[in-house]
C-alpha cells in the first residue's frame, strides 16, 4: 500500500521553504510532487516600478548566494539596450568576482551535502573555508553578501592590489587541495553515500532542459562560459568537467573539479588584469538612445544558466519588463525523476544535489 509523506515546506532537511510530496511504497519513493512559491516576492513586477539604476539594487536581492551573478546578467542585458561595452579591466573584475562567488557557492553546497551525508566534520571544514572566500569578497567589495560590484557599462569598484588577492586565492586553493577535493573525490564515506543514487539519465536531462553542474553530471558538456563567452572568459583557459553517471556522486565530482577550475581562472584573471577604466564613457547612460528595445543576456551562474530579458518603455525611466530565468527553475522539475525508485532516507541528499535555490526560483 502506498502512502504520502510530505517533506516541507519547513523541514530540517531543507535549507529553504518548498515542499516535496513523496509517494512511497514501504521505504521506496514511487513518485514525487513538488510545490514551490513560498518565497514568491513578485520581484519581476516590482522591477517595472523602479528605474534602471534601482533595478540593479533590486535584482541583487533575488538571491543571497549568487547575488553578483544577477546584477552581472542584468547589467549585460542593459548594456545590450544601450550598446555600451565595458572596458577590459571591468570585464576581468567581473570574471574575478563571479568566480569567487562560484567558489563560495560550491563550497557552501559541499558543506550542506556533507551534513546530509552525516559527515559533520566535513561540514565544519567547508564552512570554515567558505568564510575565507567571503573574506576575499569583502576585501574587494566591502560587503559579504550583496557586493554591489556591477553597474551599466562596467564595475563600481577596482581591485587595487590583485597580487594580495592572488595570495589569498592560492592559500584557499592549497587548503581545498588538502581537504575538500580528496575527501569528496576519493573517500569511501562520500562514495558509499552518493554513488548510484538520484540518477538523472542523459535522456532525461535533455528532455527536462537541466543546466549547470546538474547537466554536466549527466554527460551534457554545456557551459555558457565556453559556448557563449561573456566578460573576459574568451581570454582565459579552463576545462569544463563532465561526468557521465548522472548520480549524486557525479554531481559532487563535477562541483569538486569545478572548484579547481575556478581557482585556475582566478589565477589567470588576477595575473592578467589589464590596466584601464572601470566603466565606459563618463559613467552615464542614456536610455533615450537605444540600439535595441529588448535585450537578453545569459550567464553561467554556480547552479547553471541564468537569463535576463529587459525591455525598454517609451517615455519612462523604468523598464517595461524584466524577466529572470534562474537555474533552479530549470533543474528542480528533474528532482521528481531523481527520487523515483530511491530510498526515502536518500531524498534529502538527492534534492540537495542540484544545489537548489528557492529565493531565485520564486523571485
Amino acid at each position, binding site marked *: 500500500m502506498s502512502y504520502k509523506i510530505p517533506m516541507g515546506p519547513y523541514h530540517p532537511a531543507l535549507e529553504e521553504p518548498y515542499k516535496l510530496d513523496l509517494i512511497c511504497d514501504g521505504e521506496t519513493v514511487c513518485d514525487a510532487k513538488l510545490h514551490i512559491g513560498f518565497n514568491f516576492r513578485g520581484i519581476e513586477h516590482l522591477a517595472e516600478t523602479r528605474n534602471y539604476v534601482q533595478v540593479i539594487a533590486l535584482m541583487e536581492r533575488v538571491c543571497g548566494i549568487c547575488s553578483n551573478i544577477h546584477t552581472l546578467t542584468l547589467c549585460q542585458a542593459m548594456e545590450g539596450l544601450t550598446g555600451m561595452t565595458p572596458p577590459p579591466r571591468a570585464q576581468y573584475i567581473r570574471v574575478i568576482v563571479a568566480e569567487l562567488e562560484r567558489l563560495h557557492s560550491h563550497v557552501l553546497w559541499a558543506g550542506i551535502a556533507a551534513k546530509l551525508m552525516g559527515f559533520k566534520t566535513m561540514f565544519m571544514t567547508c564552512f570554515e573555508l567558505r568564510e575565507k572566500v567571503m573574506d576575499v569578497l569583502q576585501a574587494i567589495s566591502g560587503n559579504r553578501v550583496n557586493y554591489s560590484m556591477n553597474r551599466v557599462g562596467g564595475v563600481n569598484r577596482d581591485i587595487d592590489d590583485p597580487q594580495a588577492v592572488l595570495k589569498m586565492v592560492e592559500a584557499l586553493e592549497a587548503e581545498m587541495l588538502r581537504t575538500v577535493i580528496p575527501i569528496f573525490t576519493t573517500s569511501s564515506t562520500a562514495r558509499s553515500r552518493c554513488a548510484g543514487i538520484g540518477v538523472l539519465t542523459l535522456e532525461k536531462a535533455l528532455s527536462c532542459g537541466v543546466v549547470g553542474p546538474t547537466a554536466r553530471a549527466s554527460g551534457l558538456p554545456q557551459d555558457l562560459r565556453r559556448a557563449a563567452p561573456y566578460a573576459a572568459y574568451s581570454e582565459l583557459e579552463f576545462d569544463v568537467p563532465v561526468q557521465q553517471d548522472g548520480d549524486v556522486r557525479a554531481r559532487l565530482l563535477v562541483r569538486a573539479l569545478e572548484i579547481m577550475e575556478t581557482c585556475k581562472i582566478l589565477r589567470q584573471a588576477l595575473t592578467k588584469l589589464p590596466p584601464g577604466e572601470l566603466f565606459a564613457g563618463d559613467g552615464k547612460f542614456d536610455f533615450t538612445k537605444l540600439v535595441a528595445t529588448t535585450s537578453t543576456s*545569459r550567464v553561467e551562474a554556480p547552479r547553471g544558466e541564468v537569463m535576463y530579458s529587459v525591455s525598454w518603455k517609451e517615455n519612462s525611466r523604468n523598464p517595461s519588463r524584466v524577466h529572470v530565468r534562474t537555474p533552479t527553475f530549470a533543474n528542480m522539475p528533474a528532482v521528481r525523476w531523481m527520487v523515483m525508485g530511491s530510498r526515502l532516507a536518500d531524498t534529502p541528499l538527492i534534492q540537495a544535489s542540484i544545489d537548489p535555490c528557492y529565493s531565485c526560483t520564486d523571485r
Partner: protein
Amino acid sequence: MTLLESIPEKLGITTPMVDKGGVHWLEPGAMTVRELCAAMNAVKARFITITAYQLPKEEGFRLEYHWDLDGQLLGFPFDLAGKSIESIYDLCEAVDWIEREIHEGFGIDFTGREYEPLLLRQGDTPGVNLREEAK
C-alpha cells in the same frame, strides 16, 4: 552554412534572421508554436524559457519562446490576440513550469494541457493577471 544559418530554411521561414539584443530573432509567420517546437526538437535545440509581455492598451500579449542552439540564443515572438495559445508541454517537458507560471501571472491559457495546483502562489484561483490585480 552553419546549423544556425540553416534554421530559417529548415523552418520554412522566408524573413531574414535578425541578430539584436543578444538574440537571433525569427518571425514564425504562419507557423504554429507546436510546429516550431517540433522543428526545434528535430535540430536538438535546448528549450530555455518563454518571456511573456502584456502589450500596451488593448493589444493583448506577446510570448517570446527561446531555444539554445550550440550556445546561440534563438527567439520566436508570438503575438496573442486573445488570451490563449497551444501548449507545447507534451512535445517539450522542460516547458512545464514556465507555462504554469505564465498562466498564473498573466492569465494566459495554454490549451491542451492540465494544470496542477498553483506553482507560485497558494490559495488563489489560477489564471489571474497579477498586473491588473495589482492596480
